[in-house]
């Protein structure tokens, strides 16, 4: 009798400890965005009858796909402790070069290749400057952002480059089992990126660099190479996004990568549990964050909250999440 009682008390005690551990450990913060997402979705279901209409849902996911892809690139950079502000403007520039090639009668394949290449080149420049010249990531990518968007405005004279190519549209936008390809691409990329950061040499090195560069170096990690590659990867994701977005919009323009987009990317990553201080986060989380941000924008739209109030809410969300993040660090 007494023994039974004792063990049940023990069980309850250990359960409580485990629960507390669960909440206080960083896992709680990892699921926080999902919790908030669930709450938001419930609120939306109650207040906006049309929100869960399947067309709207698909629409939200397609919108989220480009943001999500860019957020994956950003996540890789942020895990290493850096930041890449140039993703949207590089994306716009890539799209413009690719679209111009297509407009001038080039092949779809080469156009796509151009978009990817432009992104990778811009990323390599960023990476070289940060990893080997030891320049500050924020400023390097700020300069790249200005240069890329400047170049985008310059070559287009601020006019958008139309893309009229049914084959291209089909290739990129077609549905598979009723799901548009951009969503599938985003999901596949998120899975691959998660596999890479969790299970490969590069991924492990990436977290080690983000947690503590000096300790990583002392453990034999080629830290400069890792940092360089993160920017190349984010550049490549900018290029990939360019392909999808130019197909979706049917045009490419400098405005595709306006300053607001970079904020959305940072918000997605931060909301998705990626730490601005490096070493924490996952691409899958960032994609969740991107969906969350898109849902908020979309629902605010449907609730007829102005775009500007939306900005205010996003700003508060970013600061709140980073404050959480910094508390978690302390």
């Amino acid at each position, binding site marked *: 009798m007494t023994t039974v009682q004792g063990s049940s008390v023990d069980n309850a005690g250990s359960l409580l400890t485990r629960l507390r551990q669960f909440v206080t450990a960083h896992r709680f913060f990892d699921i926080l965005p999902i919790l908030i997402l669930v709450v938001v979705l419930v609120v939306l279901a109650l207040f906006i009858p049309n929100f869960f209409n399947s067309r709207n849902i698909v629409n939200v996911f397609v919108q989220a796909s480009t943001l999500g892809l860019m957020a994956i690139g950003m996540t890789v950079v942020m895990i290493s402790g850096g930041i890449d502000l140039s993703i949207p403007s590089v994306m716009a520039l890539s799209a413009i070069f690719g679209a111009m090639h297509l407009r001038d009668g080039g092949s779809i394949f080469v156009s796509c290749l151009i978009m990817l290449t432009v992104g990778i080149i811009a990323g390599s420049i960023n990476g070289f400057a940060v990893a080997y010249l030891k*320049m500050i990531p924020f*400023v390097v990518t700020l300069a790249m952002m200005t240069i890329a968007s400047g170049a985008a405005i310059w070559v287009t004279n601020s006019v958008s480059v139309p893309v009229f190519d049914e084959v291209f549209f089909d290739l990129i936008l077609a549905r598979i089992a009723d799901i548009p390809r951009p969503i599938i691409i985003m999901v596949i990329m998120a899975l691959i990126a998660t596999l890479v950061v969790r299970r490969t040499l590069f991924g492990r090195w990436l977290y080690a660099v983000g947690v503590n560069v000096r300790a990583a170096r002392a453990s034999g990690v080629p830290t400069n190479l890792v940092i360089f590659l993160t920017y190349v990867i984010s550049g490549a994701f900018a290029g990939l996004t360019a392909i999808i977005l130019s197909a979706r919009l049917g045009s490419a323009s400098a405005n595709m990568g306006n300053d607001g987009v970079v904020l959305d990317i940072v918000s997605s990553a931060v909301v998705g549990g990626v730490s601005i201080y490096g070493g924490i986060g996952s691409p899958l989380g960032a994609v969740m964050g991107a969906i969350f941000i898109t849902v908020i924008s979309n629902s605010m739209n449907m609730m007829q909250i102005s775009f500007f109030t939306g900005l205010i809410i996003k700003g508060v969300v970013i600061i709140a999440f980073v404050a959480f993040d910094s508390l978690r660090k302390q």
Partner: protein
Amino acid sequence: MVQGTQINRFNLTTLRDFLLRQGFNVVLVVVVVFYALTAPRFFTVANFISLLHAAAPMMVIASGLALVVMTGKLDISVGSTAFLTTSVGTILMVRNGVDPITTLVILLAIGALIGAVNGLIIVVLKISPLIATLGTMIIVRGIGLEITKSTTISLPEEVRRLGNASIGPIFVDILIALAIMVIIHLVHTRTSFGRWLIALGNDQDTAARLGIRVNTVSFMSFVLSGLLATIGGVLTLVQVGAASPSIGSGLEFTAVSVIVIGGISLFGGEGSILPGALRGVLILEIIRNGLNFLGADPYAYRFVNGAIIFIAMYADSLRARLPVTTRTFEAPDTPKSG
């Protein structure tokens, strides 16, 4: 032979050091000379006055940002602050009939408040300044767009006329901007607060060990940055004659370029308002002005801007890594007799 190569290398290093330390003065001279030769109307007094007129708001905004950067932090909410305060000011004057002086006082209070919020977030919540001010940048711009509904609102005629107020041939805003720069320069070089900013930029922990109240100093630098961003915004507003969403858009990035070109290190602890920040403003404005005279594609400006930031930043990082030659100061050798 060996000596010869050493002397040679010494000269090359001196040349490199000279270029790194004086690079932007050299650029300034080269650019001015180039434009003077190629664009006949560039090198005229009238053009220089109009150039300073155009640069006046940035002089003020960059001075404020410079104070923050000297501590090794960054404030990218300055553009939004300028936008919000000018929007509020215009609405107060146009819709509520508040007189310009009261309006100005209210605006300065708002600007300081935004700076204080930045400072508190950074000092109390210990959030990275970049992200904190990125957040406030979005929030503040959102508020501004909300209250103006993203429309352009013209200033009352009598206020608009101030935009071209001048004493003799010189616009009043040039004088205001220069006066503010001089004051900030004095604050930076001649007050305890100014020196503590530099101390923080050297190393925050060392500064704390020396008994400096680092949190207060950081906080105050953000308040001043918000205040000066507001004044810069007001100068722009009066020049433009209307509050519009384009005010302050992308301005934070231009201001950061000015800082970098002005030789104020983004690592903190190094730089000056005069001549540093002023030189930064002038170089950017002269390049823009000259490109204009040369009939360059206006769409290329942003690209050129970006390229200049990149070069400036590269020079900055090289300069930061430049080995500083130290030496021991010994007693001068007593001259040997015979």
